[in-house]
């Protein structure tokens, strides 16, 4: 059974915007130039079976949030249809229904009523909601005196305790302190186990890869790709990152030395972007030195899909002295057995002078690659752990 079905779904705005129009504007509108339509989502046809977790990724402004709004029913499609089966609850409006003058208790009931949950059910779950939000002693205080964290916690607690069939999540997992975040993630895993459907918008690619059965890639309002999260994320990184995405590639330098076609090789010596934890990763770096350069330094760095700096080093640090380069040549970077765990990474390369004064060529976040971990161990890095 499908939880969400969309057929030829589209949402159109006009470029001038529809906000705060005036009667004067409407009366004179016909004399002005035509409003250019802007489709923030178009031709989206998909079905999501019950029990799946779908990650939606794409550059900023690609239409991800519109898709969630359409699914939630807060915005009306301009064309096409979207149907949902069961109760939809979105975490994009944490505390949106809250009224500042009302107490936490009153707001829980108001918020639940907005979601269409009978009062009796809320009464039964009230204690669980309060416990989950950790707000026992503040529940009879007006929410205007709540901290922002308390506000969001109460909103999250209501949303997850009312047993939605479809849960929409929009970058809200960064709520509260780390303890509460872990609790939220636990609760989301729990939802998955109980066969709920989740639609999950995030820029945290690592999180999407970790949580989702499938990923949708949206670009310029089109659903361009769907499938295995790892593959879709890779496609996203290779094709669209840099268009206002979370990270952006850049290139600079005086180009006295220039990188050629860099190749990433796996254990078998094949060129690929998919590697395995424990396998080898070798980077073959062809270069062209347009003039003789004394003592150049080659360097590299690695970042995760979420932008975290993992490791960086260079030939100077590693005492691999290169007396000079001239003309074409190749240098090999061997990353040894890959210690990285499951996820997406970016490789940056640079070549500069011995005293770091002149940057010849630098490519930041230029080469994305993915690592799969077959061992089943968890975490970010593989350590040489052993038991005795």
């Amino acid at each position, binding site marked *: 059974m499908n939880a969400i079905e969309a057929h030829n779904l589209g949402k159109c*705005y006009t470029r001038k915007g*529809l*906000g*705060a*129009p*005036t*009667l*004067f504007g*409407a009366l004179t509108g016909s004399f002005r130039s035509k409003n250019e339509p802007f489709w923030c989502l178009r031709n989206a046809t998909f079905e999501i079976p019950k029990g799946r977790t779908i990650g939606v990724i794409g550059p900023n402004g690609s239409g991800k949030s519109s898709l969630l*709004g359409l699914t*939630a*029913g*807060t*915005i*009306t499609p301009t064309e096409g249809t979207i149907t949902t089966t069961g109760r*939809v609850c*979105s975490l*994009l*409006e944490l505390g*949106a*229904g809250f*009224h500042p*003058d*009302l107490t936490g208790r*009153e707001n829980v*009931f*108001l918020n639940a*009523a*907005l*979601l*269409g949950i*009978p*009062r009796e059910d809320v009464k039964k779950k009230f204690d669980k909601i309060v416990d989950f939000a950790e707000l026992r002693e503040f529940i009879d205080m007006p929410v205007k005196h709540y901290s922002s964290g308390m506000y969001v916690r109460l909103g999250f607690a209501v949303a997850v305790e009312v047993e939605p069939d479809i849960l929409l999540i929009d970058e809200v997992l960064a709520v509260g302190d780390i303890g509460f975040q872990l609790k939220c993630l636990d609760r989301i895993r729990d939802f998955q186990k109980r066969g709920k459907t989740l639609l999950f918008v995030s820029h945290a690619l690592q999180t999407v890869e970790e949580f989702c059965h499938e990923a949708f890639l949206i670009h310029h309002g089109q659903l361009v790709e769907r499938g295995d999260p790892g593959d879709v994320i890779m496609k996203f990184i290779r094709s669209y990152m840099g268009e206002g995405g979370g990270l952006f590639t850049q290139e600079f330098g005086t180009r006295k030395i220039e990188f050629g076609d860099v190749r990433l090789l796996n254990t078998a010596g094949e060129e690929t972007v998919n590697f395995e934890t424990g396998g080898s990763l070798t980077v073959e770096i062809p270069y062209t030195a347009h003039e003789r350069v004394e003592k150049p330094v080659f360097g590299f760095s690695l970042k995760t899909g979420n932008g975290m700096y993992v490791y960086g080093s260079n030939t100077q640090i590693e005492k691999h002295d290169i007396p000079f380069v001239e003309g074409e040549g190749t240098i090999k970077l061997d990353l040894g057995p890959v210690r990285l765990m499951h996820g997406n990474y970016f490789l940056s390369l640079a070549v500069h002078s011995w005293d770091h004064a002149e940057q010849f060529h630098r490519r930041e976040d230029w080469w994305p690659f993915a690592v799969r971990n077959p061992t089943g161990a968890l975490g970010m890095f593989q350590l040489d752990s052993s038991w005795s």
Partner: protein
Amino acid sequence: MLSSMNLFSTIWHRRELLWNLTSRELKQRYKGSALGFLWSILTPLFMAAIYVVFLRLLARGVPMEDILIGVFAWQFTTQCVMGGMNCVTGSANLVKKVAFPREILPISQVAANGIGYLLSLLVQFPALALLLWHSGSHFSSAWPMFLFWMVWQTMFNLGLAMFTGAANVYFRDTQHLVGVGLSAWFFMSPVMYNMEFARNLASKWPWAVHLLYANPMAVIINGYRAALLPGADPGFPPAAWVGFAIVPLFLIFGTWMYRRLQKNFADLL
């Protein structure tokens, strides 16, 4: 008629939400002011006092009972119009983020004001009884008709709240127009005067009095007065049927318009 029937089923299915929003509205209205709910009684009482003094100064006699009834009824309608106008724009956050039947917003406004009106009757009725007793009279035996007119006014107010609420999302000019419109309408409705006063004033233009009867607010306020006051018989000429019929028609029109426009609310806010 179909859209109105729909409306009642929406109200029934989401009655818990309606009650929540209504009580929220009532709570927030009176929280933080020292006299709280008393204001919704004190304001019309003060207004009534001002009109009485003002009319005495002009040496025009309008019975105090008539003014009292008119002022309370008028306050009910203006509150619904003003509240209804801001009910969507004021809940922008809610409308943009949560899916629920949008009709609940103006309905809860009217419900909250209706409750306020009912409670204000607790003061209005004893005050009227006192005034009537003072002049050696008592409530008219037609008083149950008061309930009918209350239903009629509530329907009219709901139509107005839907209309202004939806219009204000599309055109923010609405709030200015409504302000001016309410002032003009106030003088065109028998709030601080009665029909006898109007007939005397407009003795040279009898058609103007007919126009006055076609005003739904005139029909409703006259209805209230005829129901409660034994001496008052403002009459019900053919023109009054127009004002009477406008009430359900406007409710249907307001609901229809609100439903048509509500699909773009989230985009426009």
